[in-house]
């Protein structure tokens, strides 16, 4: 049971993070909070991939002299993929911040309800 739990906990954690992010993105009324929730959601996927790379007893994927067997190193592929995904996340955040700054400069608010009111005028 204990090892069963430990083998699954990564999936549960990433599922919980994903749901937290999704909840924040859809339900928060403040645009900055939506953006933060978006980052939480991306982190959930990053964590999911990274936990796939894990091998019990494996070490960091950098070749050490004399050790050649495959199981001694964890899987490098998800790490490489997630470096790319992190950069994508950074870029998306940058663009979203630019949009928010433009909105804030014009309307003076980032609360969705106030924003809707001011857009009606």
């Amino acid at each position: 049971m204990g090892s069963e739990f430990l083998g699954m906990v990564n999936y549960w954690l990433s599922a919980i993070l994903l749901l937290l992010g999704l909840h924040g993105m859809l339900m928060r009324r403040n645009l900055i909070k939506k953006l933060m929730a978006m980052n939480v959601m991306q982190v959930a996927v990053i964590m999911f991939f990274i936990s796939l790379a894990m091998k019990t007893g494996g070490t960091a994927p950098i070749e050490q002299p004399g050790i050649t067997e495959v199981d001694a190193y964890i899987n490098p592929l998800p790490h490489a993929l997630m470096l790319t995904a992190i950069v994508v996340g950074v870029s998306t955040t940058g663009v979203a911040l630019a949009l928010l700054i433009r909105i804030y400069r014009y309307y003076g608010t980032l609360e969705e309800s106030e924003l809707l009111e001011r857009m009606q005028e």
Partner: protein
Amino acid sequence: MRTPFGSSILDAACRLPVPFIILFAVYVVIHGHHSPGGGFQGGAILAATLILIRMVRGEDDPWGLDRTRAAILASCGVGLYAGIGLLTLVFGGNYLDYSVLPLPLVPEKVRFMGTLGIEIGVALGVTGVLVLIFDALTAGETQESDDGK
């Protein structure tokens, strides 16, 4: 960021670590083949240095990177990457097949150098773009007209 919030204390405090941070950024890029690190990480550290200088000493400081130069740096960085790919095409390999590059080295070292080249490209590109994004986000109030022109 039009107005730097520098003072003589901040100025002195930033002058000391900046060369070391730059050195560390170069180390992270170059040593990325042997240890954790690589183009993006090194570029981000380098960009942090430049942004630190910008914040403390303002946009016009010769150390800082103004936004046009940052854009040129970004283009050149990505261009270096894509250009190495085009070079490999010219020398008859597939796109980004570094092994065909005409370097006087053993085959695996040729690939090593090719990846080093693209890591440097990534680092330059990331530096330029991060400075550019910082600059765009902190640029003073641009006149906002309703049609966005």
